[in-house]
């Protein structure tokens, strides 16, 4: 279908973009790669009055290392993330995540900032970025602020972004080598979106004990869900198969997933355990 009619602006700078956001307020939507927003507009699920397209704003894409932090520009595409050597080496779980988003066309156009700001509860990146303890740089004419993933995702399609702000970069603390990060996904057979997914980030000391663990589930709530019981069950333990299985068994504690036409609540709860286990095992196996 054709989208409802809308106004279109393609500012040449962030300053110009901020002006447009001030002018149009909540009637405006920021357009990045467009692979979530445009399909929704074509189905008339959303009908923004004005699009502010960032395509001509420079400096918003690219991947660089800043001390012990990896900084990814908001307009960096999924393909760039999944193939970047710095990501593959230091954050293989993130490279794996970006490589299973949508299809090749989506990955070539879709951007990390767009996906994060859209905050689809069935998206991949929010899950992994939460596990990696990423934070998001939100910029406006008043300056910038940085919000941690744990606080950024508020609810279904709702984030801490204010209407006058633009997400400009994602900052991810680089883990000590080896990088024990992973992502395991059960894709919906139609949409390819997450039915249930799990991301794990584990730190292991020289003695083989897990010193820190973040295990995050996707698809089971309005926002990425920290499986805190599973994290606690891993922390301080040697990562034996028994320990990992026992930790994963607690992954579904406290979740209340919604049934859909494909899977019911029981299946999603069970898959939370299965995919948490797969993610934990895959992370532990990285070396």
């Amino acid at each position: 279908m054709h989208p409802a009619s809308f106004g279109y602006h393609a500012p040449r700078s962030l300053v110009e973009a901020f002006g447009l956001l001030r002018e149009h307020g909540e009637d405006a939507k920021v357009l990045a790669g467009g692979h979530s927003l445009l399909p929704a507009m074509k189905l008339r699920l959303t009908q923004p009055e004005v699009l502010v397209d960032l395509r001509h704003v420079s400096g918003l894409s690219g991947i660089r290392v800043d001390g012990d932090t990896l900084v990814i520009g908001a307009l960096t595409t999924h393909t760039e993330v999944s193939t970047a050597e710095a990501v593959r080496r230091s954050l293989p779980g993130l490279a794996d995540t970006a490589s299973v988003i949508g299809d090749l066309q989506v990955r070539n156009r879709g951007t990390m900032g767009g996906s994060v700001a859209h905050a689809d509860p069935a998206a991949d990146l929010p899950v992994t970025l939460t596990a990696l303890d990423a934070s998001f740089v939100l910029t406006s004419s008043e300056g910038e602020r940085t919000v941690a993933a744990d606080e950024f995702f508020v609810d279904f399609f709702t984030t801490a972004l204010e209407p006058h702000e633009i997400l400009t970069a994602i900052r991810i603390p680089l883990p000590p080598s080896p990088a024990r990060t992973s992502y395991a996904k059960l894709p919906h057979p139609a949409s390819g979106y997450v039915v249930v997914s799990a991301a794990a980030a584990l730190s292991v000391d020289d003695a083989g004990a897990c010193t820190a663990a973040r295990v995050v589930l996707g698809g089971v709530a309005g926002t990425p869900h920290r499986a805190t019981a599973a994290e606690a069950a891993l922390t301080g333990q040697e990562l034996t198969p028994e320990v990992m299985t026992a930790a994963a068994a607690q992954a579904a504690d406290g979740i209340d997933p919604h049934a859909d036409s494909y899977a019911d609540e029981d299946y999603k709860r069970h898959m939370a355990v299965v995919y948490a286990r797969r993610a934990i095992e895959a992370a532990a196996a990285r070396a």
Partner: protein
Amino acid sequence: MSTEQSNPDSLIGASVRRVEDPPLLTGKGCYVDDVKLPGILHVAIHRSTHPHARILSVDTAEAAAMPGVECVLTGDDIGDLVLRTPMVAPGMNMPDHPILARGAVHAVGAPIAAVVAESAAAAQDAAASIQVTYDSLPVVTDAEAALEDGSPLAHEELDTNFCYSMKREGGDVDKAFAEADHICRLHMKSPRVVAMSMEARGVLAQPDPARNELTVWLSTQGPHRARADLANSLGFPENRIRVIAPDVGGGFGSKGCVYREDVLVCHLAQKLGRPVKWMATRNEDFLTTCQGRDQAMTSELALSKDGKMLGLKVRVVANLGAYLHSATAGPPQRMLVMAPGCYQLQDVRVEIVGAFTNTVPTGPYRGAGRPESVLNIERLADKAARDLGMDPLELRRKNYIQPDQFPYRTGVGVEYDSGDYEKSLSEALRLSDYDQMIRDRDEARQRGELVGVGISTFTEPSGGAGFESGAVRVERTGQITVLTGSSSHGQGHETVWAQVAADKLKVPMENVVVRHGDTTAVQQGTGTFGSRSAVMGGGALATAADRVIAKAKAIAGNLMEASPDDVVQTEGGFAVAGVPERNVNWRQVAGAAYAKGTPAGMDPGLNETAFFDPNREAWGFGAHVALVRIDPDTGELTIEKLVLVDDIGVVLNPMIVEAQVHGGLAQGLGEALCEHMVFDENGQPRTGTLMDYAVPRASTMPPVVVGETETPNPFNPLGVKGVGEAGTNGAPPAVANAVMDALSPLGIDHVDMPYTAPKLWRAIREAGKG
């Protein structure tokens, strides 16, 4: 052109690359939406959001005032225009099928108002602004529930949800059941699936008021039948309508009938005197294009204790949806002729019942009743073997119709032309290394793994459904034009018909052009569906070619001063038998045919048309074997091996045949593994978008081994049988039987398709609770 063939002298049997592909692959195809006409108007339709409701009011005032809008029409504005449907059974209930709803709607997506505007976007904006108030009515979506006493009615004006029933019985069924040692019972449902054409439906109509004519570009499988159906609905003369099927991006059965939008667009074009176009959105295609399957089957198979099949009873309840299209009542009727499968069954009773529900209408979809019939008898055969503790191969072999019994008349009064079921089964077992596969399965089972092997052996009718036409015209310069009534929508007719004509006439394929899909260019025709083209269109073409050759021989004899009986065909022309230096080529023969060179008493010209009807269907057969594994932790099903052996008689183009098997298989696996159109209890579609409805992907396709045997069909000129539906018909039952074999250690004896991971996980979990 690359060719690969066993007999280098023959184009028949050669894997000639499709001449259709270069334009399609380079974006040079021309589909309905690519046809641009000056002054064109676009239609958008406001559709019901209710599955069953009275319409209290329709407010079109805002839409009519929007920029670019030409007019807005409701059912009352267009009056008595209806879609007409043939009555297929005495006493059939036929609800009104108005082009735009009048008074009530009976399914989500039913058209209520049409907006005509200068652009599609303007039309869609205006359609979205139309306000309808409804008075909701009770809803029924399940066909079996619809036939129960006290069910909500799908149509208030009918006092029942019953549409029609048919029955066929042979032998003495009650006696067979009375004498049986065992009766195997099974109830199953085939999932409702969507005919997911790459090109959604679309229609463009251009009126010519001065000449009182109408040209219609329609994404259709049968332009001639569409023309007659449009004429009947519009009350406009058939011979003043020209229907053109340009490139058509798939149909799978769903584009065999005329739809309300087709009549609407023609009506609007005539009313407004301008070209009018409507292209379905994907969402509209989900809600309005005929869907497939959705049959409930209740069966009983009577057996002796040593596994001899004695009798069969089948009752089909088919979900017809809310409205009748011309072929909606067709697919369930397949069970009447196919119920016994490839087994010697003389005592058979089949009853089919069609029921209305508040859902999208159903109709033919790749296989069109054949997949349901094969699934029914092949699941029964497997379950019977398990009930009796027999090897499923042994039970089948014990009951096969034997090669020396053909032509064989079954208990439902149908004559199978030819077959050798053991031959295709043996080949499938050989290709699958069956004995080793069974040993591996047993070892895996010892380890507690869920692994299963399944087979399906089947026979399927193709061709039939009336006549088909073909014409061979030798032009003045000796070039060959073939006109075929069997309009192609992706099957490769332009290639295969050129192969057949070139082979018959002994000319290079490049000298042959195939024309189809235009009622002005082509004599009458029926169209492409039901795996009929090779049998019917090919039969017509071969007959026409033979007639042209016979006439050309007479002309050649005249030119060479020889008796026609002494004239033989040579490469590119004719010669006197035994005197090769006395020869003429097609150009010379054609020149004579159009310039007073025909023998005395013979009409000029070299142009022959044949209408072909063998008055029987062609029965192909095959054997499919599947090896599956189920992950007990997730319910995920993996098909580890799939072997398909199909016997389709003479193969005209092996590459196209293999592609048809692969394509049919992909759609069959879609049904077996993931596709399911679901309506909730309130009649709302839950899987009405490609975000929810899972079509198979390339990654769904397992490793496939395609084998073949060849048993020529004695009842048509080319010895062929249809193949378009073989993969769809045979493979899902093999997968189903393999899944049930894998789950058998858990005591599970039936799960309906599709075998999604959540469904299998649920079945495994509930079996575990025991």
